[in-house]
C-alpha cells in the first residue's frame, strides 16, 4: 500500500499533527490494522468490462462550485478534519476496478490506449467533432474573462465553438498545450471536447445580428464593430497578419455544471461511486503528472445531460498544461508544490529560510512557446497539482500502476506526432517538447513499472511440463526492465492464506512462469459469488526490481465457475492491500 511504503507519493494523509495524530491513531486502529494480503479473504472484483451507469434518469439540477472554496478547503481545512483522516485510513482501494484490474467503460471513461495499441491517427479519428468550416465565423458572444477574451462563434455549417487565444507574450503556448493534451486525454479514455488550433484573419470574423458582449459584471449589451476591433488589438497577430486561436466545439447536451473530485452527484441515481474512489480519477494523477496538468480542478470538469437521458462526465480546459500554467507564484512552482504547500512552508519555516527549492535554482524556461515543462526536475512520485485533489490524494499503488500503464502505452512515434500536433512555428520547439514528454513518460515507467509487478493478460496454459501462467510483462515490452535479469517470484496459497507449495523464483524473459502442481490441487472451494465464481487459490507474483528487491505483487486468483472441475483465472489485482 502506498501510504506505508518508503518511496511514497507525498500526501496530506501522511501528515497528521500533534494531538490530532494521537486521536487519529486511536480512531483508525480498528480500520488500519488489516491483515496482510496473504491472510485476507479472497475478493475477486466483478467481471465487467462495462459499468452500466447510463440508465435514463430525470434531468438533474445544475450545480455551481467555487474555486476559492476548493483551494481554501483542500489546502487548509480538510487536513484539520479528523473524519477525513479516518476515512482515508479505511480506504481499501478504488471501487470500480474490475476483475482484470482495469476500469470498466462508463459515462466517465472509455478504455482506449490502455487496452489496445493506438496510433496517432486512431486518436485523432476517435475524437468526436470537427474543425470549424472556413469562411466567415459569426460572433455570438464575447466573454471578457480570464487572461484573454473568449469568443463564442458559429461557423458556416452552424456548429458552435468557443474561440480562445494565446497570451500575447507567449504565442502558441496555451493553444498548443490544449490541442496536445486534448488528444492525450482522449486517447487515455476520458471524455473531452473537440479542441483544435485554428488560424483566421480579422475579416473572417463577423458580428452576428444578435451578438452581444458580457462584461465582468455580467452585464449584457449588443456588440459593436468597435468592440471587435478593441478585442483584436489585445491579441498578437502572426507575421502574416493572421491570428492563431484554439477552437473548442460546443459539447452536446444540457450543461449541469462541474463535477467535483469528491462525493457524488446526489440527484444522479447512476452516480453511486464516490468520485474519490473512482480509479480513472485517482489514477489520473499519473497521467496529469506526465503532461503537467496541475490545473486539475472542479471547474475544469463538466457534467452534461446527454442524449439517452444520462449524465456524461467531461474533462475540460487543458490550456494550462505542459508549461502553460504560470499564473500563481509561477511558473517554476507548478507541478512541484501546491499553491499553499504546508510541507514546503514548514521546511522553510524550520530551516529559517535557508531551504532552497531545487526548482528555484535549476528551473528554467527553454522556449516560451512551451513554458516550464521539463524532465530534469520531474519526480513522478512527488508531482503535485495546484492544490490538493482528494482523488489524487487517495491514489494507491494499484491506481498509480493503472495510470502508468496508460502513460507508457504512448509510443515514441505517438509522442512525436502529438508534439507535432501543437503546430509550433519553430521545429526546435516541437523537438524540445517531444524530448521532454518522452523523458517524463520514461521517468513514470521507470518508477511505477518497477515498483509494482507490471504483468497483464494472464492465461493458464497446460504444457508438457505442467501448468503455466502466461502473461504480458509491460516493463519488458516497453523497455523498463532488462530481459537478461528478469525474474519472477511465485507464491501459491489457498483461500485461507496457507501456502500450497514452496515459493519459486524463475529467471526468464519468456513472460511465463510454471505453477507447481501442488498449487493446483483442488482445495475446498468458496461459495460462489453473484457471478457464479468460486475462488480457490491465489498466486502472488513479484517481478525483480532494479535495486535487487521484489516489486509489489500482482495477485492472480484461480477458481471455478459453474460446475467446472478445472481451475481457471478469475481475475488479478496489482499491489493488493
Amino acid at each position: 500500500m502506498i501510504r506505508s511504503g518508503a518511496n511514497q507519493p507525498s500526501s496530506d494523509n501522511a501528515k497528521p499533527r500533534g494531538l490530532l495524530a494521537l486521536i487519529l491513531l486511536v480512531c483508525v486502529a480498528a480500520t488500519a490494522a488489516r491483515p496482510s494480503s496473504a491472510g485476507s479473504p479472497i475478493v475477486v472484483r466483478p467481471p465487467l468490462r462495462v459499468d452500466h451507469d447510463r440508465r435514463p434518469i430525470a434531468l438533474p439540477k445544475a450545480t455551481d462550485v467555487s474555486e476559492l472554496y476548493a483551494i481554501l478547503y483542500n489546502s487548509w481545512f480538510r487536513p484539520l478534519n479528523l473524519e477525513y483522516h479516518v476515512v482515508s485510513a479505511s480506504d481499501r482501494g478504488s471501487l470500480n476496478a474490475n476483475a482484470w484490474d482495469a476500469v470498466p467503460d462508463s459515462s466517465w471513461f472509455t478504455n482506449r490506449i490502455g487496452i489496445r495499441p493506438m496510433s496517432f491517427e486512431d486518436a485523432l479519428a476517435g475524437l468526436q467533432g470537427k474543425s470549424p468550416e472556413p469562411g466567415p465565423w459569426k460572433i455570438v458572444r464575447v466573454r471578457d474573462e480570464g487572461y484573454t477574451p473568449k469568443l463564442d462563434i458559429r461557423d458556416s455549417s452552424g456548429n458552435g465553438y468557443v474561440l480562445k487565444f494565446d497570451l500575447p507574450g507567449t504565442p502558441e503556448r496555451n493553444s498548443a498545450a490544449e490541442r496536445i493534451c486534448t488528444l492525450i486525454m482522449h486517447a487515455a479514455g476520458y471524455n473531452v471536447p473537440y479542441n483544435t488550433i485554428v488560424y483566421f484573419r480579422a475579416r473572417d470574423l463577423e458580428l452576428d445580428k444578435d451578438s452581444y458582449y458580457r462584461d465582468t459584471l455580467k452585464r449584457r449589451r449588443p456588440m459593436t464593430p468597435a468592440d471587435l476591433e478593441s478585442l483584436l488589438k489585445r491579441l498578437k497577430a502572426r507575421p502574416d497578419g493572421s491570428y492563431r486561436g484554439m477552437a473548442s466545439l460546443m459539447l452536446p447536451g444540457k450543461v449541469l455544471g462541474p463535477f467535483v473530485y469528491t462525493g457524488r452527484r446526489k440527484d444522479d441515481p447512476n452516480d453511486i461511486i464516490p468520485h474519490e474512489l473512482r480509479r480513472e480519477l485517482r489514477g489520473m494523477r499519473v497521467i496529469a503528472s506526465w503532461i503537467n496538468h496541475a490545473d486539475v480542478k472542479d471547474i475544469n470538469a463538466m457534467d452534461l445531460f446527454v442524449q439517452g437521458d444520462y449524465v456524461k462526465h467531461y474533462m475540460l480546459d487543458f490550456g494550462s498544461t505542459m508549461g502553460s500554467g504560470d499564473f500563481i507564484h509561477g511558473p517554476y512552482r507548478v507541478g512541484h508544490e501546491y499553491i499553499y504547500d504546508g510541507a514546503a512552508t514548514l521546511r522553510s519555516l524550520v530551516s529559517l529560510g535557508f531551504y532552497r527549492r531545487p526548482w528555484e535554482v535549476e528551473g528554467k524556461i527553454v522556449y516560451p512557446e512551451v513554458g516550464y515543462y521539463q524532465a530534469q526536475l520531474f519526480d513522478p512520485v512527488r508531482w503535485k497539482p495546484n492544490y490538493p485533489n482528494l482523488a489524487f490524494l487517495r491514489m494507491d499503488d494499484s491506481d498509480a500502476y493503472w495510470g502508468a500503464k496508460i502513460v507508457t502505452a504512448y509510443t515514441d512515434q505517438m509522442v512525436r506526432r502529438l508534439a507535432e500536433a501543437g503546430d509550433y512555428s519553430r521545429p526546435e520547439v516541437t523537438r524540445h517538447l517531444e524530448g521532454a514528454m518522452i523523458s517524463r513518460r520514461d521517468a513514470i515507467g521507470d518508477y511505477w513499472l518497477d515498483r509494482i509487478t507490471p504483468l497483464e493478460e494472464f492465461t493458464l496454459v497446460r504444457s508438457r511440463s505442467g501448468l503455466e501462467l502466461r502473461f504480458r510483462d509491460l516493463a519488458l515490452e516497453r523497455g523498463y526492465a532488462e530481459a537478461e535479469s528478469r525474474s519472477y517470484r511465485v507464491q501459491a496459497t489457498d483461500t485461507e492464506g496457507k501456502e500450497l507449495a514452496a515459493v519459486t523464483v524463475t529467471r526468464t524473459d519468456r513472460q511465463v512462469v510454471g505453477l507447481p502442481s501442488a498449487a493446483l490441487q483442488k482445495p475446498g472451494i468458496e461459495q460462489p459469488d453473484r457471478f457464479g465464481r468460486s475462488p480457490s487459490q491465489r498466486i502472488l507474483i513479484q517481478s525483480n526490481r532494479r535495486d535487487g528487491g521484489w516489486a509489489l505483487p500482482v495477485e492472480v486468483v484461480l477458481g471455478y465457475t459453474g460446475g467446472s472441475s478445472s481451475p481457471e483465472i478469475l481475475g488479478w489485482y496489482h499491489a493488493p492491500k
Partner: protein
Amino acid sequence: MRRTFLEALLCTLAVLTDLPGAAAQEQEREILVQGERIVTEAEAHQAEHPAASVPLRFIFYPFHLVNSGMESGLVSFEKHNMRERLNYYTEYLRQRGVGVMIGGLGEGTGIGLGGSYTIKTGGRSDLRFLGRASFLRWYEEVDVRWTNPVGKAQFVLEGSYQWRPQENFYGFGMESQLTDHTKFALRQTWTGARGEIAPHRRLRFGGEYKLAWLYSTNSPNTQYASPDVVFAGLPGFGQNVHLQSLGFYADADGLKGEYELGGLLHAGASLQDGIGDSTLKYFSYEGQMEGRLPIARQRSALVFQGALEFTRPRGGSGAIPFYLYPHIGGESTLRGYNLDRFYGQNIFLVTLEYRYKIHPDFQALIFFDEGQVFGRTTDLSWLNWQRNYGFGFKVMSSGSTVMRMDFGWSSEGYTYHISWGDRVHGALGGPIRYGTYRR
C-alpha cells in the same frame, strides 16, 4: 448468476488448451452480467462512510456545518462575480475621488471604517476630505488636506481633528509600574503647512509649521484609573494646551527589496512654542535608521533598526504636557510590552530582526527589541534596557505587507499584536501626538 454446464465446460477447455475461444467466453460472461453495476450502492456507501468514521461524523458536525456554509457563501460569491464587482466599484469610486477605508486609527484603536473624498483643484493639486471612526473604542478622525505638487516639490496645507479616548499612561521612566496602568482621552486639533522637495527619488527634505490645540481628560473607559488619580500633579492633564511648532526633516530611503541590501535614514528637529498664556518652549530631535543585510538570497535578511528621540526644554519653559513626551512599547517599538508602556524625556530604541520567506505570500520573523527612556543623556545606561524577543508572521501581497502577527516576550510576560500594513515607527510630526495616521 450461474452458468450452464455447457458454458462451464467450454470455458474450462478453452483455458486449459489456451484456445482462442477464451476471449469469446469472457465476452459471453459479460453478456450474462449485462446491466450490472461494478459495485452496489450499499458497497459504495460503506466505502464512503466506513464504520470507524461514524462517531467522528457526529463530533465534527459543527465543522461540516461551518464548511458547508462557507462553501455556499463562496459559490454565491463567485457566481455573482462579487470579486470583480468589488474591484469594479472600488475603481469606479476611486475615479470619482471616493475612497473607502477599513481598519483602525492605529495600534490599539480597534477595527474601524472610513471614507475620503478627493477633489481635483486644477493641475496636479487636489483637496482631500477624510473621516473615519473605529468601533468599540470609538476613536474618531476628520482630516482636510490640500496638496499641490510642483515639479519635484510639493506644498501641503492640512488640518486635522482627532478624538482618542483610550490612550495608555503608566508613569514616567523605566521604573514605572505595570500596575499603574491608567487611561486618558486626548482631543487634538491642528492645522499647518508643509513643504517638501525630493531632489532624487530616494531623497527628501521638508519643513513644516503647525498650530495645535490639545486637551487631555478622563477616558470614558472606567475600568482604568484616570492618570491624575495615580500620578498627582501630572502636567497638562485637564488643561488646554495651545502651541505652534516649526520643524525640518530629511529622509533618505535606500531600501530596494524585502531581502536586498539597503537602508534608510530619517532625521528631524522641531521647536515647540506655547501661544497665548503658555510659556511652553522646547526642542525635539529625532533620528531613525534601518539597515537590511541579505542572508539567504532573495529569501531572508537581517534587519537592524534604531531610533532616537530627544526632548530639550529651553530655559523658562513651562512643564511639557505628559502626553507629548516620547513613549515606547507596542507593536512598532517594543513588541513584548503593552502599548505606550514607557514615557520619558528621551528614548533610545534598537531592534534586530531576522526576516525570511516561508512562502510567496508569507514571511516569518524572529526579533529582538530593546529600548530605554531616560531623563538626561548622562542617565543613558548600557545595562538598564527594557528587552523583549519574539517571533511573528506577515501576510504579503505583491511585495507589501497586508497583515502582521507578532508575539513578544518580556520581563512583564507576553503579548501579541495583530495589525495591518508595514511596521512603521512614526516620526514625531511636530507638536502633536499623532499626525494623520502614520503609526
